[in-house]
C-alpha cells in the first residue's frame, strides 16, 4: 500500500492532528483523496450538531408559534422570516462581523451565586460561530416546516384526543407531535440534505480556517488552485457528498418506517425526494 503513509499523515489533518504542511508539489491522487476526506469530518460535525439541536428547537418554536401566545409567537415569526428570507452566505458575514465586535476578553455572565466568563473569542472561530449560525438557520427552516405540518393536523384527531380525556402533555406526545413529524418528514429530509450541503459555505464566508484546517471544499479548492486541474479534486469531493447524501436519505427512510409502523405494508408511503424544494 502506497497510501498508508498518507493516511497516517493526513487523515486527521482537518482537526490539526498529523503533518502540519500540506503537500505543495507532486500532489498524488492519494493525497487529494485523504485530505478531502479528512475535511468531510468538519462538514459532518456541523451538520450533525446543528441538525440535532435544531430539531429540538424547531419543534418547540413551531408549537409555541402555533399556540398564538401574544408576543413570543410574533417574535418567532419574525425570526423565521429573517433567517428564511436572507441568504445563508450573508448571514455568515453578518454574524462574523458582529462576533468580531464583541469585547475580546469575554463577557462576564452574572449568575446569582457565581460569575461565568463567556469566552467571546470562540465565537469568531468556525467551530462555534459558524455552528451557531447554521443552527439558527436550520431551526428557522425546520420550524417553518413543522409549523405548516401542525396547522394541517386534522381537527378530528385533536377532538378525539380530547374526548379520550388525554392530558395536554400526553396529547402532544401521543397525537400531535407524531402526526406532525409523519406529515413533514419528506420536507425535513430535504432540509437535512440542504443543511449538509450548506456546510460547505463555512470556510468560504468570513470564518477563517486556522492553520489550514478546513472542510472538504476548502481542501478541494486548495488542490484545484495548486494543480490548475479541477478535474480531480472536484469529482472526488462530489463523490464524497453523493455518498453521504445517500446515507442521510437511508437514515431518514429508516426513521420514516418507524413513524409509519402502524400502517399496513401497502400503505406505507415511502418518502420520495420532493420535486418541490423548500429551502
Amino acid at each position, binding site marked *: 500500500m502506497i497510501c498508508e503513509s498518507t493516511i497516517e499523515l493526513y487523515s486527521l489533518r482537518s482537526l490539526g492532528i498529523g503533518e502540519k504542511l500540506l503537500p505543495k*508539489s507532486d*500532489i498524488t491522487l492519494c493525497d487529494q483523496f485523504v485530505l478531502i476526506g479528512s475535511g468531510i469530518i468538519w462538514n459532518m460535525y456541523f451538520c450533525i450538531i446543528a441538525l440535532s439541536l435544531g430539531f429540538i428547537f424547531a419543534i418547540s418554536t413551531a408549537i409555541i408559534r402555533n399556540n398564538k401566545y401574544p408576543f413570543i409567537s410574533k417574535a418567532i415569526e419574525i425570526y423565521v*422570516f*429573517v433567517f*428564511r*428570507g*436572507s*441568504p*445563508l*452566505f*450573508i*448571514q455568515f*458575514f*453578518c454574524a462574523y*462581523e*458582529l462576533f*468580531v*465586535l464583541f469585547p475580546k476578553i469575554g463577557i462576564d455572565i452574572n449568575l446569582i451565586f457565581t460569575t461565568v466568563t463567556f469566552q467571546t473569542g470562540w465565537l469568531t472561530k468556525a467551530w462555534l460561530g459558524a455552528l451557531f449560525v447554521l443552527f439558527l438557520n436550520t431551526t428557522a427552516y425546520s420550524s417553518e416546516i413543522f409549523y405548516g405540518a401542525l396547522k394541517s393536523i386534522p381537527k378530528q384527531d385533536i377532538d378525539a384526543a380530547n374526548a379520550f380525556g388525554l392530558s395536554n402533555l400526553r396529547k402532544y406526545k401521543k397525537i400531535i407531535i407524531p402526526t406532525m413529524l409523519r406529515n413533514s418528514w419528506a420536507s425535513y429530509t430535504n432540509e437535512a*440534505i440542504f443543511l449538509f*450541503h*450548506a456546510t*460547505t*459555505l463555512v470556510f*468560504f464566508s468570513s470564518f477563517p480556517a486556522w492553520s489550514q484546517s478546513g472542510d472538504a*471544499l476548502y481542501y*478541494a*479548492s486548495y488542490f*484545484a488552485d*495548486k*494543480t*490548475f*486541474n*479541477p*478535474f480531480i479534486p*472536484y469529482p472526488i*469531493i*462530489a463523490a464524497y*457528498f*453523493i455518498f453521504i*447524501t*445517500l446515507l442521510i436519505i437511508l437514515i431518514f427512510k429508516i426513521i420514516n418506517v418507524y413513524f409509519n409502523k402502524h400502517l399496513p405494508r401497502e400503505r406505507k408511503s415511502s418518502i420520495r*425526494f420532493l*420535486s*418541490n*424544494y*423548500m*429551502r
Partner: protein
Amino acid sequence: MFEFCSDPSTLSTFDWFSCYLTNGKHIQFYKSFGLIILLLVLTAPLALMLGLAAAVAIKSNFFLLRLISKTYANIVRGIPDIIFFLFIPITIDQLIEFTRHKIKCPEIIDSVWQGNDFIVCSVAKLPLSSSPQWIHDMYGFSLAILSFTIVYGAFAANTFHGAINSVPRSQIDTGKAFGMNKKQIYFSIIFPQMWRYALPGLSNLWMLLIKSTPLLFLLGIQDIVFWAREIGGSKTSIFQYPHPDWRVWYFLSLLVFYLLLTKISEIALNRVSKKLYLPI
C-alpha cells in the same frame, strides 16, 4: 457629488454622511445591486428553458438521452451547488482555452498541463490579456450566468419532471386515442396544464435562486458582497473618509435588501398563484 464635499474633515455629521454615501465607491456599490437583478433576470428564463428541455428528455425514448438527462437532473440532489460554482467556470475556461490553443498554435506540441501549471500560448488566452477591463468583466459574468443556469436548470428539470408526471394520465391517453403525435400531445395537453403543478415548485426555486446570488462573490465578480467588504473595512486617516470597521452595517444592509427582495417576490408569486386558482 455635492460642492461642499471638497474637504470632508470639516463637515458636520449629516453633511459628512451625505458626502460619504455618495462618493465614487458607493456609486459603484449601488450599481452592483443592479448586477444581482441582472443575474436573476438573465438566469431565470435560461434555467427554465434548460430545465424544461431536460425534463422532456427524461421522457424520451432514446436510452442515451434519458440517461444523460436523468443524471443531470439528479446530480444537484447529491452535490452542493457551491461546488458547481467553483467547478464550472474553471472547467469551461480551460476547455475554451484548450480548444483555442489547439487551433491557433498547432506548432506547440507540449502538453497544456505541465506539472502544476496550465499553459496555453498567449493568443489562445480568453479574454486576451490585451483586451480592455470590461471584456474581462463581461467574460467573468457570462461564466457566472452559465454556472447558475446549469445548476438551476437541474433543479428546474426535477420540478418540471414532477409536473409533467402530474398531468392526468387519462388525458394523455385521450390525446393518443385522437391520433395525436408526441409533439401535439406535449404542446396541446401537457405544457398548458403542467404550469399549474409546476408553479409552487418554481416559486421555491426562484427563492432559492435569489438566496444564492451572493455566491457571485466566490466567482471573483465585484458584486455587493465584494463592495460591502471593500468599503466597510476600517479606513485610516489617510483616506478621505476615515471610519472604523463598519462592515457589520454594510452586511446588515445587504440582509435587509435580500429580505425585501424575497418578501416582494413572495407577495407577487402568491398573487400569481391566486389568479390561476392554484393551491398555494
